[in-house]
């Protein structure tokens, strides 16, 4: 599944009401580690159908960033049934992200 861009308007539909777990990638254009992480997430997204990955730009969506207390990026927040169940901050290798997804 391709990574979907999420904003305040579609957050509820794409994340909260999602039937499958959602990995939300909080990022910004100026953030080098976020840009490094993106191809890894693209790869994960294309390999998996059991969860989806969404991208949230913190500059455009500062309300969402505030709501979820995101103050360092890249920040990956895993949602299940609309609730945060796990979070990872900073650049991580692919297998660590996979185990974060599998571990729940």
């Amino acid at each position, binding site marked *: 599944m391709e990574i979907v861009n999420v904003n305040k308007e579609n957050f509820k539909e794409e994340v909260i009401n999602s039937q499958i777990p959602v990995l939300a990638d909080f990022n910004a254009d*100026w*953030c*080098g*580690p976020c*840009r*490094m*992480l993106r191809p*890894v997430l693209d790869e994960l997204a294309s390999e998996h159908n059991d969860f989806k990955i969404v991208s949230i730009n*913190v500059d455009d969506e500062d309300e969402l*960033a505030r709501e979820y*207390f*995101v*103050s*360092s*990026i890249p*920040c990956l927040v895993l949602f299940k049934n609309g609730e945060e169940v796990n*979070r990872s*901050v*900073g*650049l*991580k*290798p*692919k297998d660590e992200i996979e185990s974060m997804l599998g571990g729940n």
Partner: protein
Amino acid sequence: MYDVIIVGAGPAGLTSAIYAVRAMKKVLVLEKLNYGGQIINTLNIENYPASPNVSGFDFATKLYNQAKDLGAIVKFENVIQIKNGNIKSVITSKNTYEAKSIILATGSQNRKLGLENEDNFSSKGVSYCATCDGAFYKGKDVAVVGGGNTALEDALYLADIAKNVYLIHRRDEFRGDAATFNNLKSKDNVKFIYNSNVTKLIGDDKLEAIEITNNDGNKENILVSGLFVAVGRIPLNDSFNELIKLDSAGYIKACEDCHTNIPGIFVAGDIRSKDVRQLVTAVSDGAVAATSAIKFINEK
């Protein structure tokens, strides 16, 4: 079997790869995280000769592609042990590789304060990079802890963004650059707290306050939304600290020639004992270490 195995795909490691492949050597670079090393955290590199205003990400990506295009093999695996011998082995979490020579370019990472719940607050108020995360604290109160140049520069950067900046230092004098310090003193919203340590992080969902304890044992809480930790860096020497001679701070003892105490194992970049840890010194080490490794292989 490789001619050269390089541990770390930061600026030093990738530069040594370029030099070694151009000398027709078979080169493997092993990286545990992602190419580029620390520099990807910088939005703007302003002091690299002849390339003003390049972003850390672009610098890293160009360097990585250059090394790959020339023929270096890069694998993303964590190196856990180095073994010496006539043929050297490099053990990763997945495989074992053999090489005639090794270049260690593992760099360093941010030192944490070591407080009990510190990790719980990462991305929730505790940060190790002011230029990366400062923008989240517009109009808020923040603290910086540390006494060196990074702490001073972080405080100066944050003074223009945050409402108030508390600069906390465990001694009564700063080690950093005098000009930066004077610049800071002229800012009305920067408050200096000397002879004190951060001893507790307070908050439920996110950081709300920090407890500081001064040298007399007096405690005080300061309300802040952000704490920027700038208490230095630690060398990443886990995979070789038993084999290679280190200095008292844990960096590899080596001179300009980049030789370690073991023949055929060389060092480049921030992980080496040195006064200036910057891109230019990292890449120049990369060139020297690769040249030394090539000479070592050819003379054998």
